[in-house]
């Protein structure tokens, strides 16, 4: 009986280990086909993880970016992804509050069915990452391009997000609550 339990446990562990395949884009060929259980890592993500500040006149902006493992429930393929929080203050009055984000490292698409993360990445490249940033005052997502500069400085430029031919309507309010362009200092 003990042997059966031991063998079952061993089988379970070996299956669990075999289910995840770590995929490094730099080491795998062009004909790679994503499969259930794959975890596609991103070799550029770490340089964007951290806390950022911007201060100018009466404006204080804070952003915290974390690395998480995002898993799509439909394909069951996982990706390295940035999630984050932002806070905006005018004259020390909070305009945009930091929102909660899941504490766990592994997040799934189902975790965000009813909530929109305040910050999430949609593309991470060598010295640039494209972020979705949710403007809770305007109640819309905007696109942020975060570019690495010298001396812990990063440029963040915001622009309207395009929905292709599914633009919700002609009356979509333009503009953002956040400054359109900022030079951020990475503090942590």
């Amino acid at each position, binding site marked *: 009986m003990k042997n059966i339990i031991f063998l079952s446990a061993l089988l379970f562990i070996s299956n669990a280990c075999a289910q995840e395949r770590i995929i490094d884009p730099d080491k795998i060929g062009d*004909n790679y086909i994503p499969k259930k259980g794959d975890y596609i890592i991103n070799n550029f993500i770490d340089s964007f993880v951290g806390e950022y500040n911007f201060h100018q006149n009466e404006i204080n902006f804070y952003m915290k970016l974390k690395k998480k493992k995002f898993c799509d429930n439909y394909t069951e393929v996982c*990706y390295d992804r940035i999630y984050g929080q932002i806070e905006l203050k005018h004259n020390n009055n909070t305009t945009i509050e930091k929102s909660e984000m899941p504490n766990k490292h592994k997040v799934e698409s189902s975790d965000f069915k009813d909530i929109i993360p305040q910050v*999430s990445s949609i593309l991470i490249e060598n010295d640039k990452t494209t972020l979705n940033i949710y403007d809770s005052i305007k109640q819309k997502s905007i696109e942020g391009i975060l570019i690495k500069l010298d001396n812990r400085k990063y440029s963040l430029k915001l622009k309207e997000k395009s929905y292709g031919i599914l633009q919700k309507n002609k009356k979509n309010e333009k503009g953002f609550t956040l400054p359109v362009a900022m030079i951020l200092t990475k503090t942590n």
Partner: protein
Amino acid sequence: MIIVFVACYGSSCPCSDGNGQTFYVTVPCDGGGGNPGDGSNEPTNPGGFPTDPNPGSGGSSNNQELNPCQLGKKLKTDANFRAKMQNLKNSAQNDNIENGFLMSPDGSVYTYEQIQGLPNSPEIPLLDYLESGENYAGLIHAHYDDPEILSVFSVGDLASLYYMYYNGYMTTPNKNFVMGLVTADETTYLIVIDDYVKFDNFGQNSLSDESGLDNLQLVYQSFPYSILPTSSNTHNEHSLAKFLKHNNTGLKLMKGNYLNFYNWKTVDVDNNGNVTTNQCP
């Protein structure tokens, strides 16, 4: 043996599915139009706007379900459709505004309603144009010349397809609905629904809300697909075909002739990830 119902252009015949398997085609005749052609006939003036060697309405009744190749054949013999695609091509090359047409069924042909976005905004407010209770047979649009606009369909384009499907704006059968694209990058494509169940599941997971679209944008743009405005036309085309297959979207990509929109080929992906563009049989 597979029995496939196709549009009326002859009697039953043994055919090949391209993989060596023989199947038979059963042809219900309803007195439709002429021979839509077999895909091998070249247009009489291939450099310009073709004169159809096999003119006709396409020969299908409105509710006959067509597979992607049959739909492609029907569209290549539709002079009005090709004229609208040419119109969009001109717009893609000369305008800074997204133009498109909603296609409504009108007997064996289509009527077209123009839809349009705002200058320097790669969007069309589709929801403003969709009329409650109306069923559309297609949606075609242009991507103008802009360094941030794709040479293939965007995630937002796929979302609009699902929106029309989910909200009952498509004519039935939904597989006959056509989504078309012409770009300033000299590409033209169709996307059609090839598998309802897969498309429904994919849409519910990835195309039905903003979080799903954002997640899909990540997958679209990241390794191994990297479908980006900065990627080459061929890369985006192959990656989109792979993306559609590997993500069980139930959608099929077809590539057209940019010169005259006369010929539509399927963009196929084999089990090893190799992409080929194939003439319809």
